[in-house]
């Protein structure tokens, strides 16, 4: 029986439909202002892709901050368990998962059996998350593509000292005004996110294999900088943004046979 997982994040909503571990559909859309509408839209698209009707789904697990507003979900599970589940399924050697999304970053530790044994989340604000990177890109009048391009080792790192997204934005604006090269500023921004992520990861400890999930894993510059600072190779799945939804779908499959 096919099952579905849906991850309604602060920025993006994903749906994964599985049938016996085979992926029938995967959809990623922006969440927008109304998470309930986004959930319905993403589900509709995924059903169209898979050629299924809603009633054919045996079980649905919702995750992400918007999990509470999915009326059609049979069960709600946190991103912590879902990202852990999805990452372990893709690579059973994974012991640490770093999920950086739009407003949250999480570090999850897994047992050799894939069970969550510990986790930490960022503090209240969005510093060091995907949203932070987007605001900085906006301040530099550029896009995420340029923000993700790794720079040459010879490029210097501009100093971004403020943790607060609003103040960091004005810092970036003044660095531009002072004539600092853009790639130095971008490197500085990336570095500040890396620093925050590492201090979070150290709280629970990093054990190899380390996988990065969430949209920010697509940022190659950041991933490489993180690898360099940690001295550990990071695995990134083909679609890091959908790992939460994949985990949710896997949990749905387990529930369906219960």
């Amino acid at each position, binding site marked *: 029986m096919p099952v579905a997982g849906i991850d309604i994040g602060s920025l993006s909503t994903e749906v994964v439909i599985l049938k016996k571990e085979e992926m029938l559909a995967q959809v990623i859309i922006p969440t927008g202002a109304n998470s309930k509408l986004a959930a319905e839209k993403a589900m509709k698209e995924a059903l169209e892709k898979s050629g299924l009707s809603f009633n054919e789904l045996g079980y649905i697990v919702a995750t992400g*901050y918007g999990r509470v507003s999915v009326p059609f979900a049979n069960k*709600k*599970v*946190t*991103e*912590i*368990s879902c990202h852990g589940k999805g990452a372990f399924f893709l690579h059973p050697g994974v012991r640490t998962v770093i999920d950086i999304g739009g407003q*949250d970053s999480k570090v999850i530790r897994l047992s050799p059996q894939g*069970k*969550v*044994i*510990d*986790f930490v*989340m960022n*503090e*209240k604000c969005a510093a060091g998350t995907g949203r932070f990177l987007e605001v900085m890109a906006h301040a530099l009048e550029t896009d995420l593509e340029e923000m993700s391009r790794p720079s040459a080792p010879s490029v210097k790192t501009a100093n971004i000292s403020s943790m607060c997204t609003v103040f960091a934005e004005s810092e970036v604006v003044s660095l531009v005004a002072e004539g600092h090269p853009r790639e130095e500023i971008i490197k500085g921004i990336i570095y500040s996110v890396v620093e925050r992520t590492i201090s979070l990861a150290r*709280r629970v400890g990093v054990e190899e294999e380390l996988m990065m999930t969430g949209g920010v894993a697509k940022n190659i510059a950041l991933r490489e900088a993180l690898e360099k600072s940690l001295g550990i190779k990071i695995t990134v799945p083909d679609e890091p943004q959908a790992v939460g939804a994949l985990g949710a779908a896997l949990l749905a499959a387990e529930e369906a046979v219960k």
Partner: protein
Amino acid sequence: MYDFIKNKIIRGKTPSMFRLPFVYSLGKAMVRCNLLKFSYRSAAMTVEYGMEQIRRIFKGRSPYVWVSAFFPTEFLHALDIVSFSPEVISALITSLGFQNNFLEEAESRWWSRDNCSFHRCAMGGLISNFYPVPAAFCASSHLCEGGVFLFNNLARRYHRPFILLDTPLDNNDNSLLYVTRQLQKIITLLEGVAGTRLRVEKLEEAVFNTEKTRQAMLKVNELRRHPYSPLRSKDAFAYLYLYFTGMGSRVVPGIYETLAAELEKKIKESQNSKGGETSPRYRLLWMHLQPFYQNGIMDYLEANGAELVFEDFSHVYWESWDPGRPLEYIANRMLAHFNYGRIERRIKVIKELARRYNVDGVIHFSHWGCRQSCGSLNIIRNSLQEEGLPFLVLDGDCVDSRNFASGQVQTRIDGFLEMLA
């Protein structure tokens, strides 16, 4: 209970109503006539006790002093000085929903938002003339450093004595002597406040009351180990006022004894009735305080099968001592606090509590600005994990709801519950 007071009595009223002594006389009468309902008779007795203390403060006939958490209140009871615990009153103010008035008042006088909000709220209440100016500010240096600085600041502002008990970190014979000597000086200072001499029999009686309280608390704590014990952390917070101001009081031992008797009865009833309260799915230990504004954390945990069966502050941390040597008894109590001094002491107690109450996990509520409780969390976490006990840190604020992000707290709690499953 608070909802009742809030909706039926307070709605639309200003805090100034609570400066009128007769409000407390009325409140006491309502408690007595069962117009205000409590699930425990002992909780009603606690409220009555608290109201009487506060009534006396607003009446203004008896000398009254501010005491920081853990200052020895036995002297105050023996001298008939009313002790006022600003931290606990801030909690009460918060549960009534008035805290923002006071927080903003303190902030507008440059009292930083990085400081503990129990203190900010207390300070705001005093500088906005809600509380009468006390005759003295009495602080103990152990555990809460913020209280010492706040009291010192306020004492200078209002030209009142600042009475400090400097409690050393190590618990040994030298420390005992050092504290005992200070206690003698403190007695002299408090005699000045009371305008009378301290009679030895009175002090002995007060210390004897503390010992009786201790024994009754031990009885309660033993009963709470029972799988059918219904008393949860959220109920236990109702007795906080006694814990901070009631040591030495004549009334307080009876309240704890009543609680023990009530618990015993309720446990028996559950055992007899077949459908009695079943054991929860997960038993948890709570560390530090809880938010006192509407937050739903504890109810949410309960609704998901996780019950807070014990909280570290209810632990009886001091050993018995000869009440016939009152100063030593008090000094020993001051030096014995498990959250003070070496971290090993704190860890030992937490592990012991985890074992005694057979818990599946531990939650620490990290109150913004509280250094003593939030320091060393990493060490505590590691040693609990060695025992296979999951540990969750919830960041938030007990008083200032502006520092509380409910969505994030919920994800952390959900993640923790999934980890326990």
